[in-house]
């Protein structure tokens, strides 16, 4: 039973979470399709916490595929590379999915014949590199978290420092999405190689690759790859296929039986978590010198003619991806970027994909289910059971509606990961997650005004002190001793009359 490459063979079954239809096999029948370079890419320059890279090309300039087009403005942030060979036609603001407004992008139009920039050396034996150098290289490679957060991998590694445990997240728990599953089936050896490089970067003694029980092909491929690598640090762990088991904090709980402290990061308990796609991108860079210019995306849904996984260049438009998957069939009513639970409904298919885009779903409303009218909460407690953060959504809901920020804070709204499991479980069809986003904004505003009030108070008190000090040093109305005596004498004279 005790297989040395299977870590924690019987992981805890989560009490939380919801079971949704899976609908993953739609897109796993065909191998990953390598997309030819599209006619045009719009590459966003923003990653992580809204920090943009600085363009190093000008409009009109020709670039080769893989050439750096923007350099980072903060340590650990990624370099951005041309994902196709062509001519830069514009550098400007373009709308992207999920953003609150347009962001800086570089637009490249394809030229005939793909020329490849080969300015990066390959490091066939990267294990000889010191950890700091690996992180610097990862930043140069333009690698960001491919799990959806877009957080720069090098910055994450830098801030984590040394962690004994590396967790590679391949447990994609949302329905429809199969890009990590397909990546593991086809390129498990790259994921394992990337895991070894990332382990070296943080000094990890154990690298656990987490997948779900419903990924037998990926499991076989991974076990073979680990066998071939013969690295005792590499192990796999299989968790229950329940949503949201693939959430970073939830996966850590299931695999290691530990919780990330509230307000903290996994590094606080000696764990760093990376997506399996990120690990493969790291391996691609160190083994082939290829920076991050593409990723695997699931294009699926009942309104897609040939659902499949596509390895697409970053900046490709959603419409181009859909074309590659055979175009729309029937009448697609909803276009979702991401999974059905946490994904964003796009208004327009001209938007470009970023490194964070893992899935595009074109669905009919019938397939997703018609939303029913909202009813009052009947306190059934199904949301309490579903919440992976052990919150009480029905209590949070009243706190949001009452705009009671103190209560929102004590009930733990900041621990809400917005997974939508409560919405999915709610028989009254209350849009809980949307309410909690409002609640988080309310709390943030309250905290901001509290901070501002505290600054204003400090300033006011400082001013009072300053005035008092000035008064002491230089009294404005020096007391006239004579005038005081006259006043006192007048008062005394009047006293007898009053006592009469």
């Amino acid at each position: 039973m005790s297989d040395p490459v299977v870590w924690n063979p019987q992981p805890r079954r989560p009490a939380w979470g919801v079971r949704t239809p899976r609908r993953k096999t739609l897109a796993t029948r065909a191998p990953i399709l390598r997309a030819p370079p599209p006619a045009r890419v719009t590459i966003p320059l923003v990653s992580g916490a809204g920090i943009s890279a600085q363009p190093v090309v000008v409009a009109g300039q020709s670039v080769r595929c893989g050439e750096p087009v923007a350099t980072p403005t903060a340590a650990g942030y990624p370099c951005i590379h041309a994902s196709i060979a062509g001519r830069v036609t514009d550098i400007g603001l373009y709308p992207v999915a999920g953003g609150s407004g347009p962001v800086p992008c570089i637009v490249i139009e394809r030229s005939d014949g793909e020329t490849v920039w080969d300015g990066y050396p390959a490091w066939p034996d990267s294990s000889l590199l010191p950890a700091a150098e690996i992180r610097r290289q990862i930043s140069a490679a333009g690698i960001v978290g491919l799990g959806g957060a877009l957080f720069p991998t090098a910055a994450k590694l830098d801030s984590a420092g040394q962690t004994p445990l590396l967790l590679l997240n391949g447990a994609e728990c949302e329905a429809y999405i199969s890009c990590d599953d397909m990546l593991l089936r086809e390129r498990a050896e790259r994921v394992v190689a990337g895991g070894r490089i990332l382990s070296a970067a943080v000094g990890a003694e154990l690298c656990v690759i987490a997948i779900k029980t419903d990924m037998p092909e990926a499991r076989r491929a991974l076990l073979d790859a680990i066998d071939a690598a013969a690295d005792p640090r590499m192990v796999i762990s299989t968790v229950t296929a329940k949503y949201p088991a693939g959430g970073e904090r939830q996966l850590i709980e299931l695999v290691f039986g530990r919780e990330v402290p509230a307000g903290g990061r996994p590094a606080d308990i000696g764990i760093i978590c990376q997506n399996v796609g990120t690990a493969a991108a790291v391996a691609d860079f160190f083994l082939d010198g290829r920076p991050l210019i593409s990723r695997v995306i699931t294009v699926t849904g009942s309104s897609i003619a040939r659902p499949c996984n596509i390895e697409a260049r970053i900046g490709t438009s959603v419409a181009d991806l859909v074309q590659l998957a055979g175009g729309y069939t029937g009448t697609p009513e909803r276009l979702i970027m991401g999974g059905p639970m946490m994904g964003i409904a796009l208004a327009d298919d001209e938007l470009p994909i970023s490194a964070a885009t893992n899935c595009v779903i074109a669905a009919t409303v019938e397939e997703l289910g018609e939303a029913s009218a909202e009813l009052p909460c009947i306190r059934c407690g199904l949301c309490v059971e579903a919440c992976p953060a052990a919150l009480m959504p029905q209590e949070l809901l009243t706190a949001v509606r009452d705009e009671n920020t103190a209560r929102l804070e004590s009930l733990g709204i900041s621990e809400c990961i917005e997974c939508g499991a409560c919405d999915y479980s709610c028989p009254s069809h209350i849009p809980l997650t949307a309410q909690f986003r409002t609640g988080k904004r309310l709390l943030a505003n309250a905290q901001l005004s509290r901070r501002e009030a505290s600054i204003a108070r400090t300033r006011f008190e400082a001013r009072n002190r300053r005035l008092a000090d000035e008064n002491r040093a230089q009294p404005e109305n020096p007391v006239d001793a004579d005038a005081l005596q006259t006043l006192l004498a007048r008062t005394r004279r009047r006293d007898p009359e009053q006592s009469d």
Partner: protein
Amino acid sequence: MRFATAQPPQWPSPSGVPGMMRIVILALLPAILVSAWFYGPGVFFNIIVAVIAALGTEAIALRLRQKPVAATLGDGSALVAALLFAFSLPPLCPWWVTASGTVFAIGLVKHAYGGLGYNLFNPAMAGYVLVLVSFPDLMTGWPAPDIGDIDYQRPGFGATLQYCLTGRFPDALTLDAIARATTLDRVREGLGAMRTMDEIRMNPVFGDFGGAGWEWINNFVAMGGGALLLLGIIRWHIPAGVLGGLLGMASFVWLLDPEISPSPGFHLFSGGAMLGAFFIATDPVSSPTTARGRLIYGAGIGILTYVIRTWGSYADGIAFAVLLMNMTVPLIERWTRPRIYGRSA
């Protein structure tokens, strides 16, 4: 191409309140039929009166509160409350008893507190307690169950209907002549008269565990409850708490002195134990939402039911126990809030 947008999650919940209510009604149906088998058509008359009164009151209350009438009536919650209330009533019951309890349950207990989801108390049990204390004489209308070896007079369809509509039986029959003490009543009276359990149980109204007939109704209620558990409409915590609390108390006292204490099995299969455990205490609105809270709440109901049955002045205690525990729900919920992920206790 342009598309309509919506906030995530894009996937609406597959479950719904009306569907849950429908399942509850279906799960109760077999027990209602068995009850009618033993006790006659009065069971149906009660249900008809309660359902009409409940839907009427709900419609008027919604109208007064300026809420959509048709949509809310369709949620099925008033129907479930009416069914549970009617099922608790004696099979021989004048219509005004049923109607006043229902109007009180739906109009005051439910809608005066804000309607679906906001009532502090279980409407069916509040209605039951109201009629129990208001019409104590009329709440004794339990004929002996229709079981072969129990010899006595049963009112027919016409007589039952006439009693339901007018409060009188034809041919100078009186309620006193027809009504028989329930098994819980007999145990109370018998023990009060210093008889032992063995002597009390000689009477043919006793079955294997509880009352003859009654234990079968309780069996079917328990089966319906099992179906609710399997279908995920209710969780096991509250029924386990209620039955565990009742069983624990009954076993403890019975072991102390089995001569004068009804057996634990008798407690579980008599009166409203099963109905209370599976259908009434599990009303989501008036019960806690946490797993630990539900266990505590259920155990409280079980223990209080035993206490009221044994040392109180009413034969069955489910309704009072449920209402008393309803009052503790906010407190229980406060105490049993789960530890938030990543936060210390």
